């Protein structure tokens, strides 16, 4: 009954090829956007913003970025943490060097800089594949973190090697620094997530996305039908790094406010984002959101249930968290290799026939 295309007539090519061709799906999409933009900002408090919503939105951008590279183009990357660090440090250098320029422009420029760095580290992908490429991107991860720790210019010669986000405003409202209101923090991330998701969704639906997917499915066949692997792989690296860089910049400037590269952008971050897209679903924009939500909310929810409701010792709950998340990853890999996105797809199929399945 829900999600049915019956009676939903298209009268133009544009209508036929729109992102959500089913009317019900389209209304649901607009409803989610309306709630996110018009309702949540009025109710969000510091705890919700800092513990759940802001990290969820930022990880969603990072997951979209990695999903383009790994899920759509099939190039495994373990360098996400390093590329996020590039975004964060680019944003910091820009913020301190040009204090009068809007933070929004700095955030976008950080993405552009990260795209360039990502494309450079993507060059080996032309020669090597699979596990070997994973190792090459792992090298990028370690090299970039080492670089930002080693060269004092990147952290403006501060004594501690930390970078701190000064206060910057958008339309007169502070969005970075300690005096940021929860709703401002939330909204700036939401705007970036929405724009990034729309861009990513449309890129992957068009020629570019098909090129990436052909490389992913069988690179030799793709080359024979005229896909340029150099262009396809490097654009995937660049576009992916662009999103990851924006995520890193937001992570530093809006979410944490102060960053120590080795701790925040270490190898764990690369794995975390990789787990997000595996659990959420490879090759799906919705999957990036679902995976990010799952891995951000689950630890907080487990902690609330374990410590606050059941009163268990905090160390026991922290250890249980590792066990449960590990078990869930295995469960997903075995039971649903296509991730949460596949559940969503199946649910939609079932809802079409509900309540009279045949």
């Amino acid at each position: 009954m829900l999600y049915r295309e019956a009676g939903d007539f298209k009268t133009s090519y544009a209508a036929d090829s729109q992102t959500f061709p089913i009317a019900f799906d389209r209304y649901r999409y607009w409803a989610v956007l309306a709630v996110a933009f018009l309702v949540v900002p009025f109710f969000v408090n510091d705890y919700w913003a800092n513990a759940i919503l802001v990290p969820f939105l930022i990880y969603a951008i990072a997951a979209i970025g990695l999903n383009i590279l790994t899920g759509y183009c099939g190039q495994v990357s373990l360098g996400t943490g390093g590329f996020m660090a590039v975004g964060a440090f680019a944003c910091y250098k820009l913020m301190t060097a040009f204090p009068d320029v809007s933070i929004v422009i700095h955030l976008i420029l950080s993405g552009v800089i990260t795209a360039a760095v990502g494309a450079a580290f993507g060059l080996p992908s032309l020669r090597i594949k699979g596990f070997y490429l994973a190792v090459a991107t792992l090298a990028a991860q370690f090299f970039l973190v080492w670089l930002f720790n080693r060269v004092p210019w990147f952290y403006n010669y501060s004594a501690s090697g930390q970078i701190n986000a000064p206060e910057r405003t958008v339309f007169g409202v502070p969005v970075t620094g300690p005096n940021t209101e929860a709703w401002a923090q939330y909204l700036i991330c939401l705007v970036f997530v929405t724009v990034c998701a729309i861009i990513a969704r449309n890129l992957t639906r068009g020629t570019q996305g098909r090129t990436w997917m052909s490389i992913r499915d069988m690179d030799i066949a793709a080359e024979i039908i005229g896909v340029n692997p150099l262009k396809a792989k490097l654009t995937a690296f660049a576009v992916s790094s662009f999103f990851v860089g924006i995520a890193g910049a937001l992570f530093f400037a809006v979410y944490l406010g102060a960053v120590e590269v080795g701790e925040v952008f270490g190898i764990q971050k690369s794995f975390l984002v990789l787990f997000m897209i595996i659990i959420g679903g490879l090759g799906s924009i919705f999957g990036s959101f679902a995976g990010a939500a799952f891995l951000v909310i689950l630890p907080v929810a487990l902690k609330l249930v374990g410590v606050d409701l059941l009163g268990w010792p905090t160390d026991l709950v922290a250890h249980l968290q590792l066990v449960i998340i590990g078990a869930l990853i295995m469960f997903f890999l075995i039971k649903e290799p296509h991730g949460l996105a596949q559940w969503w797809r199946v649910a939609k199929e079932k809802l079409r026939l509900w309540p009279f399945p045949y």
Partner: protein
Amino acid sequence: MKIKTLAALALSSALVAGSAAADLVIPDLSYRTGPYAAGGTPVSDGYQDYFNMLNARDGGVGGVPFRIVECETGYNTEKGVECYEATKGEGALIYQPLSTGITYQLIPKVTADNIPLHTMGYGRTSAANGEIFRNVFNYPANYWDAASVAVNYLLDENGGSLDGKTIALVYHNSAYGKEPIRTLEALSEMHGFDFTQIAVDHPGQEQKSQWLQIRRERPDYVLMWGWGVMNQVAVQEAANIGFPMENFIGNWWSGAEHDVTPAGMAADGYKSLNMNRVGDLAVFDDIKTLVHDAGNAAGDGSNLGSVLYTRGMYAAMLAAEAVAKAQEIHGVAEITPAMMRDGMEALEITEERMAELGMAGVGPAFSVSCADHGGSGLGIVQQWDAAAGNWVALTDYIAPDDSVTGPLIAEDSAAFAAENGIEPGCS
């Protein structure tokens, strides 16, 4: 979607359940898991046990009991921020995150929320300047004091001159480990010793190349700014290359029992700084009978009396004393975080008071003022006796060289004030 709603339900019910009665709320941002748990656990045990002892013995302070809200950070800054946001709404009086990384996150946040932050012997050193860091305290001592105390001790050992000597710093490659570099550079110019820096990356389980470098360069002394598993590995590696242990000095976070016991007899003679005198304090009897025997021990109760347990208890004592001071200043028993801040700024710890509390000589006597949130900066040097299995204090409290640390603090805090548009002042 389903998971989201479930989580939201769990969250909102927990938030509703967490509404508070009139207590003195003390969040304990502890870490009992991960590579730093060996250090985090005893500190947290001591911290909680002392407050529980006060509750059991005196009914809290001024008739109001303490309520501890523990939150596991795993020494991770993101979790630390989440813990801060989760606990601050309950009326938290003071934060002691026991992590320099989390401290850097919290400094702007506590300033905006007007909640005091006490970073005892860690954190941002220039927070000692209370005219700029109004809500941040790092009494009784900070890293730059520690660096200066260590160099003063070495000066004393070498008849007043370190000319031509080489001192290497093995440090945790993070904000924590990098803090003393500036001071040591200034001191090396002043006293004419060569200063080399050797970084160890988080978590510090792999230090072969660093100690090979030390073996090759043979520095006269090695100082260490380590924490967690890094300390044990460093002591073991130093033993492996045959570095003379008496020339190896850790700071006060690198000198606990669990740091040296894994290396066995090879660790004999290793030195470290300490801001506390360890020993059999009278207050431990109260904790034993009123908390541990009553079955309320934090953790497994095995750490009573250890170096870091004593330090956690010492931190709790300073907080409890500040609560009493705040109650005295404002004449109310149920204080707010802003009142707590006033109490901390007027805090005075004397030898008599420490003896009265059953912990005579546990720390240096000091007083806090608006201009000076840093305390006296004194530290002792202790040495590990592996046969007896205990730390032996080698010196009395050594004073740091304020003429070195003072200008550095003024410079760094002024930079922070300029960056954040803070008007220095005491009003």
